[in-house]
């Protein structure tokens, strides 16, 4: 039996404007896991996420109460407040409950920005507001397109830790990430996309060497001092 909240997608071929973008896709994402989609630019990561969200023609429609999708670079057309943006997440439920919105703002660490206009805060704060909108839906599955793009390292770690904790709490999370460091540290499962195909799928340690090959970069051990994730003990 499939656990409630698992989403599956089987697509032999997805073509956009006559160009094949995805091929031989047959995947399932379970709750309780943070899965990261990695791969070179143009590999089809965003298209796969949109297909999972049911936004491409020919893909199965999803229940908007159970699945939240955050596209990359979404911008508000209006100078709404952060609280109003988060409250948009209640639209699928057709209610205006305050508690889920307050929890979402708290989870994303932006309670203090509730009355601030979304077009007058920093890019990182706006990204958290978009995430809070997804959290306010209280879905079983999150689909997030590059939630850490153009964030500073500390903010990126904070967002990834939040997503990992969200998965630990029982939700399914699928993120597109470019930073392989973040993917290795936080994801339970990596999926490598190359030219529209999933060429590797498994725990980070097994997928990352193949990802390096896909990017045409060497794979090995780097002994140089480097930035560590929050909480890591610095060597004496």
């Amino acid at each position, binding site marked *: 039996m499939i656990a409630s909240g698992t989403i599956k997608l089987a697509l032999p071929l997805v073509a956009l404007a006559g160009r094949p973008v995805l091929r031989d896709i047959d995947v399932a994402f379970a709750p309780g896991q943070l899965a990261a989609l990695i791969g070179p630019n143009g590999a089809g990561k965003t298209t796969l996420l949109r297909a999972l969200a049911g*936004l491409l023609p020919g893909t199965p429609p999803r229940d908007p109460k159970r699945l939240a999708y955050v596209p990359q670079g979404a911008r508000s057309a*209006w100078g709404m407040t952060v*609280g109003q943006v988060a*409250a948009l997440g*209640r*639209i699928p439920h*057709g209610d205006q409950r305050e508690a889920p919105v307050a929890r979402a703002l708290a989870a994303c660490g932006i309670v203090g920005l509730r009355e601030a206009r979304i077009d007058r805060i920093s890019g990182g704060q706006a990204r958290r507001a978009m995430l809070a909108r997804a959290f306010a839906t209280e879905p079983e599955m999150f689909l997030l397109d590059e939630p850490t793009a153009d964030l500073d390292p500390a903010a990126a770690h904070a967002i990834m830790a939040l997503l990992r904790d969200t998965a630990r709490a029982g939700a399914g999370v699928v993120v597109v990430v470019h930073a392989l460091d973040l993917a290795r540290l936080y994801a339970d499962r990596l999926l490598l996309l190359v030219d529209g195909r999933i060429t590797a799928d498994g725990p980070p340690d097994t997928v990352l060497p193949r990802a390096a090959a896909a990017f045409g970069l060497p794979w090995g051990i780097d002994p140089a001092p480097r930035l560590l994730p929050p909480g890591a003990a610095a060597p004496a």
Partner: protein
Amino acid sequence: MDGAGGQPAGAAVRRVPVIAGLAMLLAVLLALGLLTGAAGFGVPDATILWQLRLPRTALAALVGAGLGLSGAVLQGALRNPLADPGLLGIGGCASLGAVAAFYWGISAAFAPALPLAGLAGAALGSAALLAMAGRAPAGPSLILAGVALSALAAALLAMALALAPNPFALAEITFWLMGGLADRSLLHLALAAPPIALGCALLLRLGGRLDALALGEEVAASLGAPAGRTLLLAAVGVALVVGAGTAVAGGIGFVGLVVPHLLRPALGERPGAILAPSLLAGAALLLAADLLARSLPLLLPLSAEPPLGVLTALLGAPFLVRIARRMAA
């Protein structure tokens, strides 16, 4: 408790007094509308009240309400603060229908032909617009279809003017195109009220869909409110309201564009939060402009009322300049 849709406490607190204030202003203007006329200020006899002032006052409120609400909905649906109800070309088509009735002299022989022809023009234009835009239109395709329709209607209108059978017809057409509510009867009210009321009822229900569109079409679709359907419903509602409004009042600009901008500073920018207030403010604005049009000949040595459409443009243009300066700041 926080206001509807997680509004900021400030705007939620302000929303009730703003709506109450607008409703009171509207009531005062309605009373003034019934008490002001060519005969001066005061309670008129029953015939003047029923045959002249009531239709005129009610039409100003209805048409203004429809224009204000249409502007708020279209700006939300197109995610563009510059959208105006005239953008869809339905007003142009209604004008063309009315002008056709002038041109062939039907309106001289049979007075109701004028609004009826306007309604027919609006209906034909709406059918053409929806056929061009398709079942799930995208914003740009809807705008392009509207611009094409406007251009076509404007060209045919210019042709009717150029080939006008006599100078009187030319003057009549030109004056009607400027927009106005003088000498409208209960018949005009009966013809315009049902489509405008229906259109407003449809548009007022779109608040949630417009909110969903605030973050873009992909987010709207993922929230279960696809943009195509929102645009289609908005286009149908605006066509009903603007088509019927133009058929009885001629071309009245700026109300739909300006009203939402007047309200956003007080109510915040969430699209769904300004729909009902835009309806009230549009009604109040057009009533006030029409009262001004009626009173000016009493106050100034004018031989006739200034056309209502000209007044709204004169009042609206400075507001637009202010908005432009605020946006630039």
